[in-house]
């Protein structure tokens, strides 16, 4: 089978994989909403635009909060924040995972032992609790900070997985051949090993993406998210603080959670879909 055919085959399965299609469609939908949403509304997320506790209506598509903020506006801005944190946090987690995984897997030996131990340690420590503690003591927190934190604690499993992959690729003979051509280790990793793992790295990133969104939502919910912004987790936090459950203001706390579930769920489904595309063994099922 030729390479072109193989690529075409990926495209063929990718386009015909329902999981992939549904997953990507949902994520894409929310992404578009996050992008254009702020233009669909003429309010600001923290602006008091109406009497409080309004039911959803044609003017306020998702109703208003107790304070009279437009829930839809908060929702679309929150979506934006969610994607930003997902991309940054997930990206950073993937990046660190790649870095440590590559180095450990490629160098092997003592370096590997040490990095592996380090990874195991971070893996065992309940990271969210550490995150909580750090976040609790920070005075001002923004999305960047939040993403950084999430990224810094999310990498261990990725590093572990990438290390294993690198390890198996390293023993492939084309890597030896590159070394026989006088290639430096870094270049070998970048030009020989990494390209072979692209599909795998994509899968890792998607999972990190989803994980970062969930972690961010949790942090926000506890009130340890960004202190001066809107996010889906903060919306839920606010809804609870302002008694939305008791007061029956379902439009306040259902949309943000639903969006997170949908996005993360879609990401997971996409991941499985891609896995099936990349891994022919799974296609039969």
């Amino acid at each position: 089978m030729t390479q072109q055919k193989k690529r075409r085959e990926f495209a063929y399965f990718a386009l015909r994989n329902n999981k992939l299609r549904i997953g990507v469609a949902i994520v894409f939908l929310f992404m578009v909403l996050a992008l254009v949403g702020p233009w669909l509304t003429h309010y600001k997320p923290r602006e008091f635009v109406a009497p409080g506790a309004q039911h959803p209506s044609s003017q306020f598509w998702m109703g208003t909060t107790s304070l009279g903020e437009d829930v839809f506006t908060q929702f679309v801005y929150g979506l934006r924040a969610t994607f930003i944190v997902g991309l940054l946090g997930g990206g950073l987690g993937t990046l660190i995972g790649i870095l440590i995984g590559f180095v450990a897997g490629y160098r092997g030996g003592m370096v590997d032992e040490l990095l592996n131990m380090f990874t195991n340690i971070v893996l065992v420590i309940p990271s969210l609790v550490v995150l909580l503690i750090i976040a609790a003591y920070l005075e001002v927190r923004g999305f960047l900070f939040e993403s950084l934190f999430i990224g810094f604690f999310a990498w261990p499993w990725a590093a572990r997985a990438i290390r294993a992959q690198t390890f198996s690729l390293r023993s492939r003979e084309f890597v030896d051949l590159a070394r026989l051509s006088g290639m430096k280790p870094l270049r070998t990793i970048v030009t020989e090993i990494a390209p072979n793992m692209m599909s795998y790295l994509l899968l890792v990133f998607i999972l990190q993406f989803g994980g970062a969104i969930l972690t961010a939502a949790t942090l926000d919910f506890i009130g340890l998210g960004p202190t001066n912004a809107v996010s889906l987790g903060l919306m839920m936090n606010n809804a609870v603080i302002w008694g939305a459950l008791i007061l029956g203001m379902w439009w306040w706390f259902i949309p943000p959670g639903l969006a997170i579930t949908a996005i993360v769920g879609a990401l997971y489904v996409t991941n499985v879909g891609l896995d099936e595309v990349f891994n022919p063994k799974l296609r039969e099922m």
Partner: protein
Amino acid sequence: MLKLDEVSKVYKVGTFGGRALRAVQDVSFDVQDGEVVSLIGESGSGKSTIGKMILRLISTSSGVISFDGVDVSSLRGGARKEYYRKVQGVFQDPFSSFNPIFKADRVFRIVGQQFFPETAARKWDEKVESSLHAVGLNPEHVLDKFPHQLSGGQLQRFLIARALLLDIRFLVADEIISMLDASTRIDVLNLLADLKARGLSVLFITHDLSLGYYISERAVILYQGSVVEMGSTERIYDNPLHPYTRMLMASVPRLDKKWEQVESELRTRRNELSTGCVYYSRCGMAGKDGGCRTEKPALIEVESDHFVACGCCDQECP
């Protein structure tokens, strides 16, 4: 030209190297200019480890590998690169030797970038083409293709062509035909033998005795990391002395003879042997001479250019 002197490789296994695994033990042999030497052994005999140590893909634990009198392990940076100009390797799995997502001729480009950055592109292309011709490939048929579009035999020739681009004097050929189909492997083997005519030395690593016999002048038989017998190929094949070599000879499935035949032939010429060497446990004559149990037999020259590491090759057959 290339000389191994008491080379050993010890792998540390377990947490922080708790246990030692001796992959290669005190191996010494040399390869002369324009000579093909076969390194023969079963899996786990350390033959590939030796190849990789020569190529500096792994380090030696002790002993010296020298090329033209220079200790190879001392080479760093530029000197190391110069070494790779002269010494190259080809490996067992042709498909694994190429990065599957790039076109196969990328291996030439890398060599060009790394070793001849100043050569003009067109001149380089010509050089590549002539090198391909030299290994019997038609550049038009094989350039600009992905590895899986080429056959294993073509790929292995590709790699030899890649080595020829350099001022290569020594080639480590590690089981390069074991994964090829029978109909094409002989051509690669012939090519290897032809390199000799260009003054190249080849270390031919194989588990197949008949292949070793086909192309090499000298053979080194390895068992569990130690040399058990070495010398001129003809002499070893005609008169294997070490029990392990004999066992190997008796086990090779042959097209011209049945096993029973070979066994009986060998039996008639069997010498009384006993070993305390690495082969002690499997040696049919174990226990005949208590010394072998504790003392590792030295490699002795039993006849001109024929060495054996066995304490009792001189004894009578039972």
